[in-house]
């Protein structure tokens, strides 16, 4: 290229978009983290900041995931269980999640 065209205005616009993207990512992360620390949902955290009514405490703190058929297959293989024995698989899943939580809480105390 002999002479570079002057696209500095366009370049500035691209930079502005970049800043906007980083900012909105940071904002979203801040809301997720502060909500988690205060045991709130992200939506309630947004309502709190905006001074709109929100639920002070989570009605029922939940930790659920929806397991699909293929998830049960994977987990049954991992635990050496029958994929149809879903109650046993769920029990092992609960145990594994509790172990993770205990380990995590001990680690973060240190």
């Amino acid at each position: 290229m002999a002479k570079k065209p002057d696209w500095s205005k366009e370049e500035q616009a691209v930079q502005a978009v970049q800043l906007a993207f980083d900012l909105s990512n940071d904002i979203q992360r801040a809301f997720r983290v502060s909500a988690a620390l205060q045991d709130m949902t992200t939506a309630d955290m947004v309502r709190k900041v905006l001074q709109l009514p929100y639920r002070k405490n989570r009605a029922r703190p939940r930790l659920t995931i929806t397991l699909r058929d293929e998830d049960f297959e994977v987990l049954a293989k991992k635990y050496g269980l029958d994929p149809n024995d879903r109650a046993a698989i769920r029990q092992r899943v609960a145990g594994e999640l509790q172990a993770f939580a205990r380990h995590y809480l001990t680690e973060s105390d240190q």
Partner: protein
Amino acid sequence: MDTQSLTLALGDATHAGRTFDVMPVAGDEPVLQVVVSGAEETPVYVTVTDTQILCLAYLFDEQELNPERLNELHENMLRLSVPMPLSALGRTGDHYVVYGALSPTSGTTEIMQELVTLAENAIDLLQTFEDYLA
């Protein structure tokens, strides 16, 4: 068309059954973050300059990619960029993006068409290039 009139126009508009959630982002240059209903995971960023209306969606960062397959990915991106409707692939800094540019004299209908197509293309591209992620 400027960002302010675009914010007002998109707020109440519907295009191909889609609605638009517009949020102006603070900064020196006005930028809009537009979330197209049904494509919430890929927000589109819009700026207006004298020469163009630039609409851009972020796909992934270089750090997220498998370095050994980077050349293959670039090759595929160049090839896909041509037939992809209304959008092209590019890069700003470490971010890989899909974007579309319109004339600053474009009307709301053209802009909405661009936003819907771009957000849909971004989702399709994320699925297409999933294998290249580290």
